[in-house]
């Protein structure tokens, strides 16, 4: 049904995959900090750090050939990194789903336990 090949020149090395993971996680973390903005979480330093860790490798990759970059190139690399990151996470899905299915089996057969909080309130 599906036939897809990640034939991306120069990106298949193992170190590059670790770098893509870093960019992907920092990208998600930055979005998380922005959409759940709360000054009591002290988000400024983590947000700046994750943006630096996120944009650094992308900027380096876009400037690799001619030492210059453009918005179109940056957007292309953002798309590349996020789609590759998402793709590898999807590759883990059968293993994650096997674990989740096992958990659902336990949940389906489980009986509720006595709530210790209610007992504590009554005493």
């Amino acid at each position, binding site marked *: *049904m*599906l*036939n*897809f*090949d*990640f*034939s*991306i*020149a120069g*990106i*298949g090395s*193992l*170190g590059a*995959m*670790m*770098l*893509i*993971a*870093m960019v992907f*996680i*920092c990208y998600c*973390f930055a979005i998380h900090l922005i959409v759940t903005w709360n000054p009591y979480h*002290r988000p400024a*330093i*983590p947000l700046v*750090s*994750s943006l630096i*860790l996120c944009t650094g490798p992308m900027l380096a*990759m876009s400037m690799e*050939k001619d030492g210059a970059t453009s918005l*179109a*190139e940056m957007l*292309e*690399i953002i*798309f*590349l990194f996020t789609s590759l*990151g998402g*793709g*590898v*996470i*999807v*590759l*883990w*899905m*059968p293993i994650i*789903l096997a674990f*989740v*299915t096992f958990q*659902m089996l336990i*949940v*389906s057969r*489980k*009986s*509720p336990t006595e*709530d210790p*909080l*209610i007992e504590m*309130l009554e005493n």
Partner: protein
Amino acid sequence: MPEQPLYFESDYHRCEFISFCNDDGRESYLKVVTWSLISISTALIGCYTIIRGSRIYAERNLPVLAIGWFFLGLSWWSIAQSQWFVDAYTRLDVLAWMVCFIFGIAGTVYILFQIIRFTENVSPKDPPIEPLNDNERRLVTEMIRRNLGDGS
């Protein structure tokens, strides 16, 4: 994903890095995205329905439980149909990518953890919170009793 402009169009930009931007890989890429979304969404619906139908929050509801397992089965079926997973799991280089990706995630989480710890250390500490007085304690107890107790 919008269609790529042709070379004579004004907004044409040649993709340097992404193979599936220009060539036939685009169709396969869209298929993988579509089927992945189907697998993930059916798995999420299935898990939610199973939890709703089990005896966690209320009495067991067998029809709801059966619908949940149907959706989870549908998710497994969509994965089993996908040649993409078979290709990936039989290639050593892709398996190595997957493992390296997990190491990358672990390393990044550790770095972010250290950054958050540093931020907490350099931020001025908040004064200690006063303990609840009798009125507040009664209020909290009543809220818990109403939410978890008999509801009366």
